[in-house]
């Protein structure tokens, strides 16, 4: 009795759908519903099992290994960058030290050169002074000598002049005495 009522209910439920399916929508025909559910379950479970057990772990592992590989490369690049930075700092330090040293050497050389120049200048000045003194002495001597010779030249000139004017030769000793007297007077007037 119970089975009969269940069968009637199922018939009433599906008869409508079967009628509807026959009219237009084959999807509502329950004839192959259970078959489709069964095959869907079998195929889906097998597919899920294969993806879950084999493909998914393989791809996860691959992506993880690639991520790690990229990470390690990035770390390596970072360490290389740090090393380059360190070397650059060392290079800059060496360059700045060399610059300072060259500056110091250049200043020292300049000072040495200036000292040597001033020393040489002093030496030259000393030589110049001594030579100047010598030259002045020589000039004075020459002046003295010239003054002395001037008296003789003046005597001879005066003698010839008087002789030409008067026609008689004057006494040389008197003439020399007069010229000497005039010369002495001139010298005195010059030195006074």
């Amino acid at each position, binding site marked *: 009795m119970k089975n009969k009522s269940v069968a009637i209910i199922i018939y009433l439920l599906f008869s409508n759908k079967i009628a509807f399916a026959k009219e*237009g*929508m*084959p*999807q*509502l*025909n*329950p*004839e*192959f*519903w*259970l*078959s*489709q*559910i*069964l*095959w*869907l*379950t079998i*195929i*889906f479970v*097998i*597919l*899920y099992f*294969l*993806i*879950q057990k*084999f*493909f*998914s772990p*393989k*791809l996860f592992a*691959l*992506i993880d*290994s*690639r991520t790690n*590989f990229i990470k390690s490369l990035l770390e390596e690049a970072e360490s290389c960058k740090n090393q380059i930075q360190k070397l650059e700092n060392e290079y800059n330090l060496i360059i700045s030290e060399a610059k300072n040293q060259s500056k110091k050497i250049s200043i020292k050389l300049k000072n040495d050169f200036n000292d040597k120049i001033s020393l040489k200048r002093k030496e030259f000045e000393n030589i110049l002074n001594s030579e100047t003194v010598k030259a002045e002495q020589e000039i004075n001597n020459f002046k003295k000598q010239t003054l002395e010779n001037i008296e003789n030249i003046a005597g001879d000139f005066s003698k010839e002049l008087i002789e030409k004017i008067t026609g008689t030769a004057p006494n040389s000793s008197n003439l020399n005495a007069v010229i000497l007297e005039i010369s002495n007077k001139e010298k005195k007037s010059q030195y006074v």
Partner: protein
Amino acid sequence: MATNPMQQFEVHRIGPSLSFKGVDLSFTNSSLFMLISSILIIIFFIAGTSRVNIVPGKFQLLNELVFNFISKMINETVGPNARPYFPFILTIFLFILTLNMVGLLPYAFTVTSQIIITFFLAVVIFVGVTIVGFAKNGIGFLKIFAPSGVPIFLFPIIVAIEIISFLSRPVSLSVRLFANMLAGHTMLKVFGGFVVSLGIVGGWLPLSFSVALTALEILVAFLQAYVFAVLSCIYLNDALNMHH
């Protein structure tokens, strides 16, 4: 010449009849295309994972593209604690996508245009998510029906709405996919019928519509698989993270 556009959705037996206690469990055209789609997915994965390299080849790249796409989708909707459910969501997405795409081929059968298939998949997800929800949160999972901050006089109505909304999830999930596939393929068939009936002179216009519709259907095939997978993730998120 024009045939019934609904004829393409008829399920018929392939091979010998198989029954258990009066229930017909025969292998049908629907089962055949499920099998073909699964084999295609397996071939896709075998081609992509047989020779894996750090620098990927064409198939490996495609595999990784799909893998990363689903992984990103799950991370964005559920979070990092959903990693154990990743293979299931990936299987659901690829299975529906392949069934939709294979169904677009001429003379192929669209498995996802069968309400029983989409409904069964939706019920599996619904039941699975409910089990996960109770397993993770215990009886506290029932809080999903009782949103906080609701005035006391509105509480019974809100709880009733939430329960109806929760119970209608498998229906909305299955009918959305089924209706999209049904409508798309029916339209394609109708326009195809127009091409044949109008002949070489007048058939160009419906043919161009058919081409455009095929392009749209390819988009819909992908979109529906994505929507199904995303909604599954959202339901899973409700069970795992209890945002309500």
